[in-house]
């Protein structure tokens, strides 16, 4: 357990990422206040969370008593002021700068002065998210990977105004939560997406340029490099529309031509080929569905 952080708030806990972050915190012994604007989303994600821990019990990874103890650490709310007692609030709300800025501005008067706010943004600037919130020195980037409850990695970024001791406290909390932090500068995409988004675009451009068929590109990547998944299969999983959104977050900031959405990507989205969720992207899945479903 972290010496100074005992109670953790998670904003956007009705979503996949927020629910996963809440699991990470509760599993490590922290009291967790799960906040979302939607009661239905909170209820659904709490059921999913119970299911996740139920499977952990079935697989012998935890005892029923431990599961019950973890589930008791959750309290759900749609009232932001219920986060008042939190030492750390992690936001995983919609990836839109104005939405995140408004949330932080609303959190500032509610939270105690010592509380830290962490943003799970994957593409936005921590400094910009913190700007104008009233406690810019106590905001850090804390980017979890999907699915957060299974992935150990967290990209940690200080903003321009983040106090070093605050960054250190947040870093220590990730270790106490059993995660593996890495430090990055506050730059678009940090490490992971800064490498991955242009790389995925490059794979699309290979298709567009007639270099190879998607299956051959993915086979080359898996066989030649030992990756578990090819880039085009991965884009199908992420969603082609999501890839465009990532490009639109990156390109205007970096002006890196590799980060610009390839025309083929836009044409495929216009044609309704969104990837697995629509049943067809670079590959044909027969019917729409969730990965692994």
């Amino acid at each position, binding site marked *: 357990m972290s010496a100074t952080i005992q109670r953790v708030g998670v904003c956007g806990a009705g979503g996949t990422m927020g629910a996963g972050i809440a699991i990470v915190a509760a599993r490590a012994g922290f009291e967790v206040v799960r906040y979302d604007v939607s009661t239905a989303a909170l209820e659904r994600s709490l059921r999913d969370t119970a299911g996740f821990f139920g499977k952990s019990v079935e697989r012998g990874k935890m005892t029923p008593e431990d599961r019950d103890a973890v589930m008791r650490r959750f309290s759900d709310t749609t009232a932001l002021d219920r986060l008042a007692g939190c030492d750390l609030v992690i936001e995983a709300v919609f990836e839109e700068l104005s939405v995140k800025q408004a949330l932080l501005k609303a959190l500032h008067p509610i939270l105690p002065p010592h509380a830290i706010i962490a943003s799970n943004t994957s593409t936005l600037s921590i400094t910009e998210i913190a700007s104008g919130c009233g406690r810019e020195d106590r905001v850090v980037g804390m980017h979890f990977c999907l699915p957060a409850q299974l992935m150990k990695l967290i990209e940690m970024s200080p903003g321009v105004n983040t106090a070093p001791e605050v960054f250190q406290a947040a870093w220590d909390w990730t270790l106490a939560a059993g995660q593996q932090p890495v430090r990055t*500068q506050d*730059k678009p995409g940090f*490490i992971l997406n800064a490498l991955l988004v242009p*790389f995925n675009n490059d794979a699309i451009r290979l298709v567009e340029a007639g270099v190879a068929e998607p299956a*051959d590109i993915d*086979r*080359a990547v898996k066989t030649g*490099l030992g990756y578990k998944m090819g880039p085009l299969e991965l884009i199908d999983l992420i969603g082609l529309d999501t890839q465009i959104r990532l490009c639109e977050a990156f390109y205007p900031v970096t002006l890196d031509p590799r980060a610009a959405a390839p025309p083929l990507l836009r044409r495929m989205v216009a044609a309704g080929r969104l990837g697995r969720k629509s049943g067809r992207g670079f590959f044909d899945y027969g019917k729409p569905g969730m990965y692994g479903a």
Partner: protein
Amino acid sequence: MSYAVIGGPSRSFPEGDRFLVGGAPKGSVLVVLSGAAVPTGTAHTAVLVELQHESLGEHTGETNGEEGSNILGFARWRNGDDPPSPLVELVVQKNTAPAAIAAACAVFEGAGLSVALCTDQPGRILDRLLRPKYNAALRFLDEGLATQADMDLTCRLGLGYPDGPIERLLRGGLHHHHEASAALFEAFGTPGFAPARRSVVAARRVAKGT
């Protein structure tokens, strides 16, 4: 599918590679390793020409987009000095004979390799895809985005890669990355292919023998 091998030494099949042992003098497929001249008008079902950074068209000649015969290009992808991977990039042209493609696949797959078909373009699949990413990773290191260890760890933990981009480059030899990037930069002229500073340093040091 029987095959004969001429030429060498080869980056795809270094001395002792079991593919070389499997060759037969009168094979129906001819594998032309680096250093050998490409014969024309032979009766082989397929003639497979080992490529480095060059196009297959340099060996076959080009005819206004209507290229193709029983001559194909290939390269087994290697990360610099690392041992060759199981991947063979097989270069086909518009009018390459289907029987030649099938024979080439049979030869390589029969040797336990995996084949990815591609057209005759610079960098084929993997070099064209990887070099900009590796240049970016090297640039990020220069710019202080993160330490090398953290960048590599992020790719291993966050993406499930067997290794990170910089540790892979260093293992295989940064100067090899420079060579591949420089060839692509010459072909395309786009910034992503411009060899990153660290690879330029490595290449110059190798050239000086330091």
